[in-house]
């Protein structure tokens, strides 16, 4: 049980930060894994809200899309998309929102729109979706992003979502938190190092004096995580 992947470490590190009873705005992929893992371990009262309109969804397996039928079937309520973004997200009722991105800067600002110039892009990304409003509508933004120099950049190609409410960035190498207005490495995962994180960051990464080493996933966490994945 002691071996685990970098993705598993990311999911576990993110899940641990969700307190019981937290209302989470969840997207598909790692955020959904993390939030569902939290519900199955230390935070059974964690409330999952998917932007497709399902409030209080309790999926048994990991949904493959935010509009998975099981989300509607197990939800406390299903609302329209305009209501979800108006009354629920903009209404200020969500505690934590998860975001990913193609690029992040030292202030937590995110780009999920385009690489290169907007009008003649190198890579046209899918776009902001719900991210711009998640970034300003929830109390705390959690970013999940694999650490790489092309992702952790000095200058975004496009600012899709503002970083004001980013409280933590969990990567496959460690954990960054805003300290004095700038993302600072506050923990590294057991398989990584401060040096590796610095190398994978496109700016001169600040490191906290008290930088921690993340606890590796426990057996309970890994069992719960793999049970989720097997079901899916």
């Amino acid at each position: 049980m002691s071996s685990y992947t970098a993705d598993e470490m990311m999911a576990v590190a993110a899940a641990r930060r969700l307190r019981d009873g937290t209302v989470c705005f969840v997207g598909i992929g790692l955020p959904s894994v993390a939030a569902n893992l939290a519900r199955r371990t230390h935070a059974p009262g964690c409330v999952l809200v998917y932007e497709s309109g399902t409030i209080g969804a309790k999926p048994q397996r990991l949904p493959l899309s935010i509009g998975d039928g099981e989300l509607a079937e197990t939800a406390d309520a299903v609302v329209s998309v305009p209501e979800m973004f108006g009354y629920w997200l903009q209404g200020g009722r969500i505690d934590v929102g998860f975001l990913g991105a193609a690029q992040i800067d030292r202030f937590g600002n995110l780009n999920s729109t385009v690489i290169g110039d907007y009008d003649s892009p190198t890579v046209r990304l899918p776009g902001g979706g719900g991210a711009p409003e998640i970034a300003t509508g929830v109390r705390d933004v959690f970013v999940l992003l694999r650490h790489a120099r092309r992702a952790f950049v000095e200058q975004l190609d496009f600012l899709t979502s503002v970083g004001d409410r980013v409280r933590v960035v969990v990567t496959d190498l460690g954990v960054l938190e805003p300290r004095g207005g700038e993302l600072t490495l506050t923990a590294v995962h057991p398989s990584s190092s401060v040096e590796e994180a610095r190398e994978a960051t496109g700016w001169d990464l600040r490191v906290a004096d008290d930088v921690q080493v993340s606890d590796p996933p426990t057996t309970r966490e890994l069992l719960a995580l793999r049970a989720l994945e097997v079901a899916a």
Partner: protein
Amino acid sequence: MAELLTLAEAVSQHVRDGDVVALEGFTHLIPHAAGHELIRQRRRELTLVRMTPDIVYDQLIGMGCARKLVFSWGGNPGVGSLHRLRDAVEHGWPVPLELEEHSHAGMAAAYAAGAANLPFGVVRGYVGTDLPSHTRVRRVTCPFTGGELAAVAAHRPDVGIVHAQQADRSGNVQLWGIAGVQKETVLASARSIVTVEEIVDGLEPRPGAVVLPSWVVDAVCCVPGGARPSYAHGYYERDNEFYVAWDAISRDRDTFSEWMREHVLAEVHA
């Protein structure tokens, strides 16, 4: 009152070249069959509107039906990019594609404003991002607090197209499960087409159902499986394997074109 038409008739009567067309469906009940009919009838110069353009929009774009896309998230959910969308934006193939890009909240507010016959919707958002310089969003000042908010122009498509589970013989429509912005799309549009899984004698009230009375719909078409490869709650599941397969099919122009010829253009629809 809605007319019961074949899909070919409905598209022929209601969709013209150059129209603004919204085929909506938020992860569920995506009107694939109707999109294919637009392709078969070779509609051109369309402005396509949708919050989450995915495979069917990739197909419409790759087949050269669109001159502009109004959207907030364009990808293959859980898989990656839309290669035909990217090819149109990055290389202008087969024709250049203009983008009007929003956030989900902005798109939802624009549909809701359209449905309510208001010229604009108001959202907190867009502030501090690079979106306003690339889209149709303006500032509006609250006349009570003096606070600044973002205004989005209402969506008023020429044609709104959605898929639902059922209609009755009078053309009243019912859909359930994740309902997305389908009600707003139909109500915001000048004309509307609804494809359904089946025509039933009577609509049975259901938890979470959205009902569209016949008198706000123009055409109802019975198209079983019309949402495939997306899903219809209570009828069939999402074909996740096809979403994955689409990545390879769509990556190459020729492979894409051949697939469309074989699977869409060749299909004769009732």
